[in-house]
């Protein structure tokens, strides 16, 4: 079964890159511009196997999105990867505290992103 991933970033360039990376890896990708938009998209798609989200976004940031997702009984166990330009340990602690499953440092290595996804969401053929 094809993995379904929701990718959230306010930068079009980043969204394009994530989509290209995931599509090349055979992963179905849904996109959203910010946290508020992501929650809307979430309502209109099958529960994704994972969410990849940026932190700094207008309207609702990545932490707000994680909170909202973890508060929903139908979505709370979705693995969430945080895409961030900060790689300091402080960042990992904050992501963990916010409820993120894992983190990827931008600019991301496409292979690493796909592997991290497999790690938290299983393989596409799993």
């Amino acid at each position, binding site marked *: *079964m094809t993995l*379904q991933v929701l990718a959230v970033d*306010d*930068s079009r*360039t*980043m969204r394009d*890159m994530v*989509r*290209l*990376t995931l599509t*090349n*890896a055979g992963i*179905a990708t*849904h*996109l959203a*511009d*910010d946290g508020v*938009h992501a929650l*809307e*998209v979430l309502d*209109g*798609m*099958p*529960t994704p*196997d994972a969410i990849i989200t940026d932190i*700094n*976004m*207008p*309207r609702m940031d990545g932490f707000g999105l994680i909170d909202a997702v973890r508060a929903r009984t*139908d979505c*709370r*166990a979705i*693995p969430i990867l945080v895409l961030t*330009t*900060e*790689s*300091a*340990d402080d960042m990992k602690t904050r992501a*963990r505290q916010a*409820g993120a*499953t*894992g*983190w990827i440092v*931008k*600019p991301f*290595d*496409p*292979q*690493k992103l*796909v*592997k*991290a996804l*497999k*790690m*938290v*969401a*299983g*393989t*596409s053929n*799993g």
Partner: protein
Amino acid sequence: MADPMAEIKASFFIECDELLEALQDGLQLIENGEQDSDTVNVIFRAVHSIKGGAGAFGLTQLVDFAHRFETVLDELRADRMQIDQSLLALFYQCGDVLSDLVRESRDGVAHDIASVQPVLTALDQLIPADEEDTDDAVDFQPMAVSLDLPDLDDMPLTTDGLPPLAGGPDDTAKTYLIRFVPQQALYTLGNEPVFLLSALSELGTVQVSCDDNAVPPLEDLDPEAGYLCWEIQIQTTKDEACLSEVFEFVEGICTLEITTLGTAQPTLCDSIGADLAISPPDPEVAPNLELALPSPAPSPSPVTQATAPAPANDTRREAPRATVRVELERVDRLVNLVGELVINQAMLSQSVDAAGLSANTSVHTGLEEFLQLTRDIQESVMLIRAQPVKSLFQRMSRIVREASRDIGKSVRLRTDGENTEVDKTVIERLADPLTHMIRNAVDHGLETDADRVAAGKPAEGTIELTAAHRSGRVVIEVRDDGNGINRPKVQSIAISKGLVPKDADLTDSEIDNLLFLPGFSTATEVSNLSGRGVGMDVVRSAIQALGGRISIASTPGMGTTFSISLPLTLAVLDGMVVRVADQTLLVPLNAILETQTLSANDIRAFGPETNVICIRDSFVAMLDLGAELGYRAPLQSYVGCVMLLVATEDGSKAAIIVDAIEDQRQVVIKGLQDSYGRIPGIAAATILGDGQIALILDPIDLIANSEWRTRPPSLEQHEVGACNG
């Protein structure tokens, strides 16, 4: 397939332009004291997104600078710093540098490091390098990524995406025993142990045993609690670091013990609980503690790109509008085709008329609707090419900052009507003339701060840049509150340069217009601002080439206003088809105030060979078009001719006399500029419905030139020179 990375890169630079615009908007809000709590965040995010994208394309200089800028913005965001005028000025400069770097990165031009240095130094003074989050600075390494992924199945499952280095692939396989005890948090954070085990299984041969001793009787079982732990024996050529990397995301929320059993063949671990060999991993068989949660329903929906608009109740940010990026070439092709459609429609009308059908047939009704539709299509197509002048105005804001800094005057730029839309080509070709006009306003228009104070004005000069739609045209004005044009000085310079005769008796408006003569420059010493070998004559030619006009108004002590009036589109116009001396000509409809068939009463003699037209108790000058264009000698009597009343730029009126009005229609503009250069009084040509070519007049230019001809001959020569130049 086109290189997807190249496409994303091109799209990144477009996004950069949008982000830079948001950055400028934010700074402007702060400058006007209109910022809200989110303004700094918007600015921060703009710089942050530029940095993020630039990193992905390996644009090191852009990343470095954006990072420095971002660090300072972050201080502001965290309220560890207060914004003041000098900081705002620095942010504007940073925005300029960022914009330069983006442009240079796009064009592949190396950046001149030295030019950035003062800004970097200023940023460093705010946040000394040692206070900066060095971790972050070091960690954020730009990296040009390639998205040519190998086949997913062939991919070795190490987490760093790179071949393991020291202690990496080792020909001798080792055996490790891993004890993995998840804590409750591991599950609540969305981790799934079975995926970790399956990732581990891809590193070597694994034997997994699950310890279910902790599982309580059913009545005591909390379905959301984790009771299981695992022991994994793995034989692999990878080292221990590779193994622990699999558990990177669960570090701290599980107990993980990795012990080396040696290089010998592993003995199968069969002592604890139910053995579970994972090869290949099968989540259906593996214990899954997320049973309470519905699994994702399989969906037939393919990859969807979500672009749904944001909810309307959020006022903080406008809902993103769905947009499509289209190559300009395709739009232009559409514009051309619509032009052809307009001509075709005109020809069809003419054929119907020629066929002698009565006016109330269904053919006429249908034709009428066709005409309306054509017009709607044409307007819609023009809208595609229209862009707000905002980007142009933002560039001017930079020009003002740089020019005022260079020359040491305090200047404030006020803009209005930034959302006024104009054809894209017009915007692009307006940049140079407008830049020159703005520089002129700073350099010549405004007085020095001291002079202003002495004159009882605020030390800070103001330049207003406005755009507005006015009767089918776009009017852009540059207004300064300086000292106005020094007319005696202008006249004396013009005389000294031989541009006007010594004894010329010129009106204020005529003196002001001397500025547009080629070679005229009032700067006694050529400053490095406006004295770049470009005069107002070049500005005027550039505006005229766009089918526009420029005029000047000045009040001593109060300031000077330059007005540029431009057509909305360069492709089509509404025109009045007129006949004069058996020639068919076109007059742009928006230039005509009213028309009237002349009777003897309307014409009054004014001097021996001059007539004026009397309209409702006022007199206007008369221009015989046939004579003016050299088609025939002036008529003896103009009774029965038609007068087109035209307003000139300075608000006065003039009457253009033609033989008859034939029609009123939309025509496609065919430029003559490329083949014939600029022809005074003629804007362009067009093709009429019967295939005939007709010239499109520029009535204002025609009148302006004609007025000069009634002046002393020396002036006329200069004006002719101006036209040729």
